[in-house]
Structure formats: structure tokens, C-alpha cells
């Protein structure tokens, strides 16, 4: 991957890649692995970009797909090898943001289903329902209903905990 490609085509979208990878990982090591894998897949699949959507939309979709695939692989390997205590250990070692509210929000997001995590991340990044629908491959109405339900769940998780 050339430095130019990384600087011009990936770095401007690094924020969303970081946010997505954080939502699907519990440790710094996993986060770095996921981030690197997403960047690699963007670089490797760049010729498949057909300009039918915006580059950013394509990057988001690819980031989500890579994270979901890696998560699935990780789950399978955990089912085969790891004990529950190991998984617990990973959660305890998880990355923490400076902002405590953000940490709580991320903890709540991680309790959502894998697809709902992707939907809410894109919503929080102020993507339109149409864009989210394009990325998730569904229709905007479905996304609107889904976001409403996810927000209610998150509020319950966040403030239900506080109360």
C-alpha cells in the first residue's frame, strides 16, 4: 500500500474506521488488528470500487463487513479454544476513552446486535437514512424504524444503569 493511497483514500475516513473497529473489539491489540485489516482490504479491493456509490459509503460498507467477518472468525475460534475467563479478561483489558460518557455509550453499543452496532455508528456519524440503507443493503424506512428502536435501547442501557 503506497503512502499516497493511505493518505489520500483512507486517512480522511480513518475516524469512522476507528469508531467502527472500536465497536467490534474489546482490546487494543484486536482493535489494531481490525484497523489494519480494514485498511488492507480497502487497498486490496480498491479496483472493485465501481463509483456507483460514494467512496466514503464504500469504505464504510467494507469496514463493517471486515469487522463482522473478523468477529465471526474470532467467535468461532473462541468457541473452539477459549474459556469464559479468557473472554472476561479481554473485556477488562478493553480500551478506554478519556470521556467517561463515551465509554459508557460504547459499552452500551457493544451490547447491541452486530448489525445494530453498524447502523447506530453510521447514524451517529450523521449519515442519511438513504446512505445507511445503501451500506447495510436495506431500505431507508427499515433504517428509520431500526434507529428509533436502537436509540430507545441505548437510552435504557445508559440511563437504566445510572438510575
Amino acid at each position: 500500500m503506497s503512502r499516497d493511497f493511505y493518505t489520500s483514500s483512507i486517512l480522511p475516513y480513518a475516524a469512522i474506521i476507528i469508531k467502527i473497529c472500536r465497536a467490534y473489539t474489546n482490546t487494543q491489540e484486536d482493535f489494531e488488528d481490525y484497523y489494519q485489516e480494514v485498511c488492507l482490504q480497502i487497498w486490496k479491493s480498491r479496483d472493485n470500487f465501481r463509483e456507483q456509490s460514494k467512496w466514503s459509503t464504500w469504505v464504510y460498507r467494507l469496514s463493517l463487513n471486515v469487522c463482522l467477518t473478523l468477529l465471526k472468525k474470532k467467535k468461532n475460534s473462541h468457541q473452539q479454544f477459549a474459556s469464559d475467563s479468557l473472554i472476561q479478561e479481554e473485556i477488562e483489558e478493553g480500551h478506554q476513552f478519556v470521556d467517561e460518557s463515551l465509554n459508557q455509550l460504547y459499552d452500551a453499543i457493544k451490547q447491541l446486535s452486530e448489525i445494530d452496532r453498524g447502523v447506530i455508528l453510521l447514524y451517529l456519524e450523521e449519515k442519511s437514512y438513504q446512505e445507511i440503507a445503501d451500506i447495510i443493503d436495506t431500505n431507508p424506512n427499515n433504517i428509520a424504524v431500526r434507529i428509533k428502536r436502537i436509540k430507545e435501547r441505548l437510552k435504557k442501557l445508559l440511563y437504566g444503569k445510572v438510575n
Partner: protein
Amino acid sequence: MEKSIESIWKEGFLKKDALVAPKLNNLYNQKSKHIIDKFQRMYQINRIAIAAFALIVLPVSFISKLPYLGVLMFIAFAIIIAVSGRFMKKLKAINTGDTSYQYLNSFNEFIKDLLSVNEKLSRFLYPYIFIAIILGFWFGDIGGNIPGKEFVSKLIVDYPDMQLVLGLPLIGIFGATFIIFILALFGGIIGTWDINLVYSGVIKKLEELIGDMEELRN
């Protein structure tokens, strides 16, 4: 007061260091380790299976009164285990401290070496196994009789004009020699096919990774 999730998100990421992209300096590090670990596990399981089989074959052959077959097969398996033991040491000696690219290239060299030795060994082992099976049954003990002698006696009755050399039917010697020749000729191909059958997934993945990394370096 309850903050909306949108404002938590926005304000949280305004803080310094919230969005630091990891450096891309050690790409494929984890993948390289995974692929070699996977191969090592498969290789070790394979060795244990061969060793177990060798240990079963020996007593079973004596019980079945086919001791030559058992001993000869045991020797074949022992050779395979000894050679694979040497390769296991080589595999463990691959330096994990190298960069991913060097690490994978060292592993690739190891695979090439393994395939080459396996090919040479197979040219000898397949004919050897065939001879072991023939001799094993020929000099075995079935119902108190030696099957080889029984077989020749029956052949002489059915084909009295048959030519014998050292008490063995000439046509049989030709047939066996032909099969041994074919096995020696194609043993290498069969051996490579056998290795690919077990490890093709890992080998293909390795080639893909090295290809990617070479493209990355250019």
C-alpha cells in the same frame, strides 16, 4: 440531566487522543503467526497419527501372523516420523522476530524444502510399501500355510507350463517389477498430491499473503 446519545458521541470525540489511528507498520503480523501456527498444529497431529498407526500396526501384524508386513510397515512409518521430526525442528527454528515478510518467506522456504524431500522420499517409500505388502503376505502364515508357497503351488497346477525363476513365477516377477517401476516413477507426484491434499489450504493462503506483501512492498 440525561444527555442525548448524539451529544455524548460528538463531545466525546472532541477530546484529544480519542481518535488515534494505529500505525500500519506491522501488517499481516497476526495473520502470519496464525497461518504458521495452524500448519504446525496440523503437522504435529499428522505425526502423532502416523506414530500411533505405526505402534498399532506392529502388534496387530504379529497377531494376524503377518509379522514381515508389520515390521516393514513399522520401518516405513519410523522413517517418516524421523524425517518429519527433523522438519518439526526446522519449523520451530523459524525466527518469529523477523518482519512478517521475512517470516513468511522463511516459512515458504521451509514448505518448498518439505515438498522436495517428501517428493524424493515418496519415490522410495511407495515402492517400498508395495514390496512390504507383497512380502508380508507372501511370507505370512494363514491357516498354518505360507501363502506365497500355496499360491505358487496352485498356479503350477493350473498352468503347468509356467516359467519359474528361483521358485517364483516369471510373469509375477515382471508384473511386480512393473508396478514397482511405476510407483518409483510416479511416487514423487503421489507424495506431492498427498501433501497438497492435507495442507493445500495453508499453502494457498501462504502464497496469497506473500503475493500481497510483495505488492505492498513495491
